[in-house]
């Protein structure tokens, strides 16, 4: 007697594979779109123990008031005019132009964080707006630094 064996065809069903992987793709696309991974950077100045002398130098003082308005060197000023004002601070005779004076950004404690970021962004754009050779030296002192260091040096900060 001859036994006839019917072999099942060897096949892996891959039809649903595409469905699963498409679901994964949709997940990755959705979660990627909502995550923001860029921002304004600032390098924290390094402590230099060899430099103990503090030299008084003229600086540009940008204040952000509690209502979100701006005061530059004690003059109220709209944000879009700060670059024009800084044009007057370009070092005389520098070519390409350079502003070596530090710019101190000092927001009021009650000021909205967004207003401070607008000012910081505007100051960072000054290099391209005025075609400066190097970035502005922007300082963002904290309240503790203002009280401890600047107060000890006799620098008047409002």
């Amino acid at each position: 007697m001859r036994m006839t064996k019917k072999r099942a065809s060897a096949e892996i069903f891959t039809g649903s594979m595409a469905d699963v992987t498409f679901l994964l793709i949709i997940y990755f696309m959705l979660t990627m779109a909502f995550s923001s991974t860029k921002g304004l950077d600032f390098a924290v100045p390094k402590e230099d123990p060899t430099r103990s002398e503090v030299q008084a130098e003229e600086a540009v003082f940008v204040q952000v008031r509690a209502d979100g308005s701006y005061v530059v060197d004690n003059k109220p000023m709209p944000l879009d005019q700060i670059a024009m004002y800084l044009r007057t601070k370009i070092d005389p005779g520098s070519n390409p132009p350079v502003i070596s004076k530090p710019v101190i950004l000092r927001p009021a404690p009650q000021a909205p964080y967004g207003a401070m970021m607008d000012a910081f962004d505007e100051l960072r754009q000054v290099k391209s707006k005025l075609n400066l050779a190097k970035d502005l030296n922007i300082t963002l002192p904290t309240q503790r630094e203002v009280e401890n260091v600047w107060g000890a040096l006799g620098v008047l900060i409002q």
Partner: protein
Amino acid sequence: MLKFRQVGQRPDPYIPTASMADIVFLLIIFFVITYNIEVDKVQVQLPRTLIREDVPRESAYVSVDLQGVIRVSAGKETAVPVPSVEEVQSFAADVVARDPKHAFVVKADKGTRYQVVDQIIDALKQAKVQTIYLLSEQRTVEDQG
């Protein structure tokens, strides 16, 4: 009446989908490589800036929402709330002790009082953090009004 005789068998209509999985897998590999795990899922309205720098992968996060709740993450695990700014300093000091060049990202709502952000930046400075990023969204022409 003419009769058409079918010669042979008609092939079944069939769309081969086996290569579809290959293409989709390639796309998945692309997304997995370029994917940044969002360790801090707090929804805040970020300030908008024109200048934006890429934040290094696995940077530590310190986030503040509009209610003033502060959360921290070293970059790999999900952010957890901390009770005070002093905790931020000890957390940052711990991260910096392991990796002195570890970047920190401050993610704060644009309506937050600056005082809170000031205290956080001060805590990071005291913990000897070298680079701080202030997270922002892209400012567009419409934003400039």
